[in-house]
């Protein structure tokens, strides 16, 4: 186990009035349990506002949880930690962001961008060694060493995402959090990046936390799958099992809403899902999905279902308990 989250909650305050008093909370994450094992990819799927990015940021320690516990290699890293632990943590957990147009500093050359983490962690003693390593990195992600002196604006979206990946793996981390790494890219380039991420995983034995709204991409990448809705994990388990045998009505709706790519078998007309996700400031009392669920019963409005099942497949739905 590299990293584990136990009962992690993250609430953001809503402030209003002249004195900016806290008038409510946005419940971005509700009691999440997550274990990241070595060389395993965990996929997180859900729609916008479901808390998947917040989860990624909590894992990368960009955000501290409101309550719950985060453990990294046996050490508690929930709150403030010593400098040594912080250093070790940062070295081992890196992030690839969604939009490669905003995640690279426009005033730094590619060489500077890739050297920065190496210098911050004083990996190499000589400049020459470091330069060689940076060149190797560029080749590894499918770019040319000549690009080192260029600036980000000279590259296309796909190439920039390659640079962002090179920066993330520069310190040979154990975990890389990928937050929608392909959704800003063109269709023809998207698969190149997914292949690259897979290839790097085999070579470096990296565990990914792979976040996306695209169920097909997440399934392709992951060993385990988490389906999130309104801050809650509604279904989780081995990705093959979840994908082939979805139990939660939301997971099923999500799968059916993906267009079919076949004009003879149009799928969207069969989608019965109504309405939109409720506001996370004021979520439904019972099941978070109860406002849109087509098969809900009375109990769903009152009781919040717990995530139950074995390691292979868990689901949070009252109907599956019966």
């Amino acid at each position, binding site marked *: 186990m590299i990293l584990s989250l136990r009962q992690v909650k993250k609430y953001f305050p809503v402030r209003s009035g002249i004195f900016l008093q806290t008038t409510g909370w946005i419940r971005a994450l509700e009691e999440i349990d997550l274990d990241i094992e070595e060389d395993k990819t965990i996929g997180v799927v859900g729609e916008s506002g479901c808390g998947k990015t917040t989860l990624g940021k909590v894992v990368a320690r960009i955000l501290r949880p409101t309550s719950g516990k985060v453990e990294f290699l046996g050490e508690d890293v929930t709150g403030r930690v010593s400098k040594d632990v912080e250093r070790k943590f940062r070295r081992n957990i890196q992030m690839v962001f969604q939009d490669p147009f905003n995640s690279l500093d426009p005033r730094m050359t590619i060489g500077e961008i890739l050297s920065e983490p190496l210098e911050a962690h004083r990996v190499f003693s000589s400049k020459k060694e470091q330069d060689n390593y940076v060149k190797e990195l560029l080749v590894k992600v499918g770019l040319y060493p000549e690009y080192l002196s260029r600036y980000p604006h000279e590259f296309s979206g796909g190439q920039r995402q390659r640079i962002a990946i090179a920066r993330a793996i520069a310190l040979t981390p154990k975990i890389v959090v990928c937050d929608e790494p392909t959704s800003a890219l063109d269709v023809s380039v998207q698969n190149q990046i997914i*292949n690259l991420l897979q290839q790097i995983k085999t070579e470096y034995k990296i565990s990914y936390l792979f976040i996306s709204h695209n169920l*097909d991409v997440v399934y392709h990448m992951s060993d385990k799958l988490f389906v999130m809705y309104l801050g809650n994990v509604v279904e989780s388990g081995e990705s093959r099992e979840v994908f082939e045998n979805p139990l939660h009505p939301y997971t099923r709706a*999500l799968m059916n*809403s993906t*267009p*079919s*790519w076949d*004009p003879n078998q149009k*799928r969207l007309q069969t989608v019965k899902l109504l309405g939109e996700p409720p506001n996370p400031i004021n979520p439904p009392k019972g099941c978070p999905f109860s406002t849109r669920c087509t098969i809900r019963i009375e109990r769903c409005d009152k009781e919040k279902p717990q995530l139950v099942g074995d390691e292979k497949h868990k689901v949070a739905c009252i109907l599956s308990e019966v």
Partner: protein
Amino acid sequence: MSILAVRNLKTYFKTPEGSVKAVDDISFDLKEKEILALVGESGCGKTVTVLTILGLVRGAQVYGSIKYKDYELTKFSETEYTRIRGRKISMIFQEPLSAFDPLYTIGQQMVEVVCAHLDCDKESAKNICIEMLKEVQIPFPEKRFDEYPHEMSGGMLQRVMIAMALVTKPDIIIADEPTTALDVTIQAQVLNLFKQLQEIYKTSIIFITHDFGVVAEVADRVHVMYAGKIVEKATVSALFANPLHPYTKSLLKSRIKKEFKNRTLPYIPGNVPLATDFPSGCRFHPRCDRALKICSQKEPPEICLNHSAVSCWLYVRGDEK
């Protein structure tokens, strides 16, 4: 019967780096009551094509002809255009939040459209708008009418935009990636609504998207664009059953399927070319796995087959090359 005929349309922009041929010699027809999908990746010219049709490209050089019914739109003056834009041809934009003015309620913005194009006073305009909001399935339309864009979700706003486009009962609606910014479950709702309304209003629609899944769900015919050119024209069933152009083929192949798990995904090598620097000959040839010698030298002609037309040298008989 075609309601819009585009012939040899070219839209060039002058930039310090040289002339950008955003749209380069394309021809197509929009038939009555059909949904025509324009598919392509970013920078392929699909948005510029429709902006040119609407006369919204300032400072660009436009050549060729755009015929809407009996009117030649390329010869239109700005005042003539305002009589057609929004009334006969209306547009739905990609980003619902940035397409509305944040300082006015959606009601005010809708009434503005109605008063500008239909002959009526504000009170009856309001009634027309509320009727329209009902039709796009907005709950509590009377209440929503007085709300500001920021108070509504993306899916809701996109419905309002559809209502606004339909309120003048136009002949043509141009929808520029109307569901790209939405979540899949909301996308499904909006697309279904779109189809329903199209059947009621019998509008012709140009539907721009980059998602072949959406194309399969909504379109009747498809035109695939690459680097400012239309490379393939086909009916939806023909395109998915039998794609012809190597670009279309690879795009359809690159869909992530279940069987691909733990395997390398098929992909198209290289990047989409920049508009300032298109390759010679066929613009897809540097990325094409079946490129011939002639592909880099001469632009391919358009070859018409049963249900499709394709611009590719592979379909030209030997003696004509």
